[in-house]
C-alpha cells in the first residue's frame, strides 16, 4: 500500500482536497504502521472504532483546513471523553473520562483524527518513560534504548512515522528531551499559550501541552491549532491570533543569538558539544551574531525543579484517594486503610517517591526553607532570562547532555535521570517557550538535538530559526529509511 503519511502535509492536503485519497486511507495506514511496530510500545490505548467513524464522517465534509483528516496521537495524560486516559498508571488503568480537554476540542474542531493515547512515564514523572505501568516505549533509532520521557510514546511514534502529529506535555523537558532522543521536532510553548484544562496536573505552575512532529512546519501548524485563551484555565493568556508559520523561510541575517556558557560546559558530551558548535558556525556564516552569555542559577535548575514540581505534584495527586475515581482497594478495614492501600497499590514507585518528597518539602518550616525559597530563586532566574532577551532574539544550546541510552539504565538512581533534564528545566521555570530540532547524529547514530529558547510568546521567531537550520542540514530523520540504507 501507499505511504501517504510520509508525504508532506501540503501534499496530503492536496490529495484529500482532490479526493484522490480519503481520510480513511490515512487512518488505515496509521493503524497498519502501529501494528507492524508494536515493539515500540508507543500506545497505551488505540481508538480504532472512533477513528474509523470519524474518517467516514469526514468523507462527506469539505476539506476546510490543512489539518483536516490527519491522524494525531495524544499523550495519555490529556483527558479524552469516552476514551480511556490512564496517565500510564495502574491508578487510572480503567479511567474513562466524562469530558474533553480544551486541546482535544480544538483538535476535533480541525477535524483531525485521534488515533490513540500514547505511552509515557506514570503521571509524566520521569525522563525515560520507564515508569509507565504499561512498560516503556522504545526508541526507533535503537529499540534497546529509551525514547526519553515523559512524552516517550508520542516522540517514538512520530519518529517512526506511525502518525504525523502528536501532542505531548512538558513540565521539565518532557516534550523536548524525548524529541531530542528520537530525532523529532518538539515545542513547549510559552506558559499560558495552550490551555491546561484537561491535562492531568503534575506541576501546575510548570505544565504545558505542546506539539510533536517530524518537521518544523508541521509543528507550527499544530501549534496554530491548539493555542488560545481558555475561560476554563485562568493561567491561559489572551493573545492576538497569529500564524506561527509566518516567519518560516525568512532570512536569519542580523539575528542575535545567545549561548549560555553553562550550556556548553563539561556536563555536555563531547559529540553533542561539537554538533552544537557546528550550528553556531553555520549561523555565523549566514549573518547571525552569536555571543556567549551567563544566565543565573541555571546550575540550580534541577534542585529548583525537584522542590517546586514535587511539592505541587504531592498536592495534585491527592485527589486519587480510592473514593471517587481510579483504583480503589476492595474491602478495606477502614477509611485510613482505604487511602493507604489504594495509593500504595495504585501508584508506582517513582510517583510515590515524588509524592513523599513533595509532602516533606511542604511540611511545616520546610515550606519556607525550600518551597518559598525555590519560588524566589525561580523569579531571579526568570529575570536573568528576561535580561538576556533585552539584547538577544533567541538563546540556543544542546537539548540534552547525552544521547539516548539503554533501557534499564538510570532506574537505580532516581537523581540521575533528573540530570537528563538539566538543560530543559530552566525553560519551564521561566515559563518560556523551548523547542528541540534534530541537528545530527552521534557515532552510534543516535539523534542529537538543538534547544532553541525564545522570549515569552516568541514561538514564531523560534520556528524561523529552526526551519532555517532544518533546511540547511537536510538530515534523513526517518529511522526506518536509515536502517534500510
Amino acid at each position, binding site marked *: 500500500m501507499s505511504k501517504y503519511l510520509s508525504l508532506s502535509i501540503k501534499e496530503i492536503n492536496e490529495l484529500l482536497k482532490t479526493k484522490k485519497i480519503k481520510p480513511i486511507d490515512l487512518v488505515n495506514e496509521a493503524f497498519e504502521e502501529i501494528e507492524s511496530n508494536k515493539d515500540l510500545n508507543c500506545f497505551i490505548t488505540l481508538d480504532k472504532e472512533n477513528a474509523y467513524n470519524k474518517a467516514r464522517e469526514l468523507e462527506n465534509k469539505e476539506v476546510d483546513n490543512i489539518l483536516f483528516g490527519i491522524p494525531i496521537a495524544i499523550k495519555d495524560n490529556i483527558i479524552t471523553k469516552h476514551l480511556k486516559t490512564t496517565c500510564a498508571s495502574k491508578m487510572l488503568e480503567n479511567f474513562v473520562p*466524562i469530558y474533553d480537554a480544551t486541546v482535544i476540542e480544538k483538535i476535533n474542531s480541525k477535524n483531525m483524527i485521534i488515533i490513540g493515547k500514547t505511552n509515557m512515564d506514570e503521571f509524566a514523572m520521569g525522563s525515560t518513560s520507564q515508569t509507565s505501568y504499561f512498560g516503556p516505549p522504545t526508541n526507533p533509532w535503537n529499540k534497546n534504548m529509551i525514547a526519553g520521557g515523559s512524552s516517550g510514546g508520542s516522540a517514538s511514534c512520530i519518529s517512526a512515522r506511525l502518525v504525523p502529529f502528536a501532542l505531548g506535555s512538558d513540565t521539565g523537558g518532557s516534550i523536548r528531551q524525548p524529541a531530542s532522543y528520537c530525532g523529532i521536532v518538539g515545542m513547549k510553548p510559552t506558559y499560558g499559550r495552550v490551555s491546561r484544562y484537561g491535562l492531568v496536573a503534575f506541576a501546575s505552575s510548570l505544565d504545558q501541552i505542546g506539539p510533536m512532529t517530524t518537521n518544523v512546519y508541521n509543528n507550527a501548524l499544530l501549534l496554530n491549532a491548539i493555542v488560545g485563551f481558555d475561560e476554563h484555565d*485562568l493561567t491561559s493568556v489572551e493573545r492576538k491570533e497569529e500564524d506561527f508559520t509566518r516567519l518560516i523561510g525568512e532570512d536569519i541575517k542580523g539575528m542575535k543569538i545567545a549561548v549560555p556558557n553553562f550550556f556548553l560546559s563539561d556536563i555536555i558530551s563531547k559529540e553533542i558539544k561539537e554538533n552544537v558548535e557546528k550550528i553556531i558556525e553555520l549561523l555565523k556564516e549566514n549573518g547571525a551574531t552569536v555571543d556567549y552569555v551567563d544566565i543565573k542559577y541555571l546550575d540550580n535548575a534541577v534542585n529548583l525543579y525537584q522542590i517546586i514540581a514535587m511539592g505541587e505534584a504531592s498536592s495534585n495527586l491527592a*485527589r486519587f484517594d480510592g473514593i471517587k*475515581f481510579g483504583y480503589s482497594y476492595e474491602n478495606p478495614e477502614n477509611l485510613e486503610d482505604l487511602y493507604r492501600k489504594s495509593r500504595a497499590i495504585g501508584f508506582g514507585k517513582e510517583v510515590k517517591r515524588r509524592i513523599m518528597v513533595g509532602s516533606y518539602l511542604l511540611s511545616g518550616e520546610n515550606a519556607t526553607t525550600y518551597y518559598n525559597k525555590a519560588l524566589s530563586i525561580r523569579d531571579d532566574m526568570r529575570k536573568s532570562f528576561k535580561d538576556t532577551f533585552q539584547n538577544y532574539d533567541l538563546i540556543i544550546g544542546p537539548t540534552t547532555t547525552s544521547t539516548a541510552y539503554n533501557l534499564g539504565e538510570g532506574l537505580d538512581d532516581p537523581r540521575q535521570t533528573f540530570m537528563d533534564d538539566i538543560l530543559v528545566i530552566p525553560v519551564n521555570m521561566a515559563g518560556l517557550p523551548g523547542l528541540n530540532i534534530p541537528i545530527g547524529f552521534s557515532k552510534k547514530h543516535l539523534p542529537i538535538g538543538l534547544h532553541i529558547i525564545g522570549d515569552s510568546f516568541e514561538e514564531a521567531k523560534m520556528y524561523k530559526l529552526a526551519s532555517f537550520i532544518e533546511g540547511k542540514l537536510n538530515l534523513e530523520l526517518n529511522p526506518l529509511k536509515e536502517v534500510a540504507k
Partner: protein
Amino acid sequence: MTEYKKTIGIEVHCELKTNTKMFSTSLNGYQTIANKNICAIDLGYPGTLPIVNKYAVELALKAAILLNCKINRTMHFDRKNYFYPDLPKGYQITQARTPIGVNGYVEIEIDGKTKKIGIHDIHIEEDTAKSIHKEDKSYLDFNRAGVPLIEIVTEPDMKSSSEAMAYLEKLKEILYYADISDCKMEEGSMRCDVNVSISKTEKLGVRTETKNIGSISSVGLAINEEAKRQEEVLENGGSIKEETRRYSELENKTILMRVKETGNDYRYFPEADIPYLTLTEEYIEKVKNDIPIMPNERRKIYKKHEISEINIEKIIQDKTISDYLLNFDDINLKIASNLLLGDIKAYLNKENKKLSDTKLTIEKFKTVVNKLDKGEIPNKVFKDILANLLETEKTFDEIVKDNNIETISDTKALLEIVNNILNNNEPSIIEYKNGHDRILKFLMGQIMKETKGSANPSLVNKILLEEISKR
C-alpha cells in the same frame, strides 16, 4: 482567691449569597436533591481547573470593608492539603498568606459602652462536600462542595460569653444587611467555632476549640460550660490540652472530639492554578459605594424620628421592614413603623405572607401615613381598611369610598356632638380650665365614642378647644 478570667476568640464561616459556586459555574444551592448542583470541577475531576467567582470576591471585599479591615490589594489563593472523603481534591482552596482583609474590628455595645473586637483576618475559601452518616455507611453530597465561604477570625478580644454573643449578633447583622450572607446558623450558612481559655494571670491559658455550635445563645452556654470545665480541671490539679470539642445542647456541656496533634500540618502553598488577583482602587471604591445603609446608620435615623428604642431594635431585626422604610424620606417614620410593626406585621403573620406579596404600594402607604399624621383619619378606619389596602389594587380614596367609610368632617354635625358632650360634662370643663390637661383627652374619647371613631380627630380637637374657650 483570684478569679479565672476567660479569653475568647471566634472563627465564623459564612456562606456567600452567590448564584454559583466559588470555583465553578455550578449553582450554589445545596438544599436540593443530593448531588444535583455539581460538575467535574466540584468533584475534583482529573484535569479540571478552578475559575474564580468574581461576585464572591466582591461580597468578601464588601465584608472586609464593613469589618474595617486593611484590604490586601494583591491577593492570591493557597492550597490547604489534607485527606478526607468530603474534600474532593485532597486540598481546599483557601487564602493563607494574603487574606482579602486583615486587622479589622467590629464595635459592640456592652454594658452601655462601646468595645472594639479585633478582626485578625477575613479570607475566602470553598466549602467541602457534606458527609451524611447513616447506620454503617457514609454518604457524600457534593452540592455543598465548592460553595463560597468567608472565614472571619477574631483576635482573642472577648472576655465573657455576653461579649461573644454581642459580637456574633453584630457580625450577623452586618453580613445580613449588606446581603453578603443569609447567616442562618440553623441551616449552616453561618457556622461558629469558639476558642476558649482561662487564666488567673495576664498570661493566656491553653485554649480549646469548640466547633460548629448551632445558635448564638448556644455559643454563650458553650463558652460558660467550657470555662467551667477548664476551671474544674485546673482546680483538680490537671492541665488543659489543645483539643477540639463540640457542644451538646441536650447535655449542656462540651464533649471531646479529638486532641490536636502537634504541628497539624496542612502543607499550605500557593495555588498555581489561579493567578494573583489585583483589587484596584476604583474597584474597591465602587464596592464601597454599593454598600447599602447599614443598621447603625438606620438606628440614628429612627432615633431622630423619635421611634422608641424597643421599636428601633424590632425594625432592625426585620430587614424587610427596615428596607421598606428606606423608600420614604418625607413621612412620619414613627407612625409608619408603628403600622408596619403592628397591624401590618400581624396581618402578614396571620396570612403567612411577605410584605412584597401584598398590594401595598409605596404611594398607598404614603397616603395612609400622611392622613394619620395629619389626623385626617382615625386609627380605627385604618384597621378597618387594612385588608383592602394590602389585598387590592385600589387607591386609598377608592377604598374609603367603596366601604362607605365616611370620616365625619362635617363641621356642623361635629359642632352639635361636641356641644352635647360638653353640656353633659360641665364639671370637666372647670377642671380643664383649672389646668388639668388630661381632661381634654377624656372629652375627645367621649366624642370619638359618640361618632364611633369616624370623626376626623384633628377637626374634633380644633372644635373642642374652640367651644371650651367660648364657655
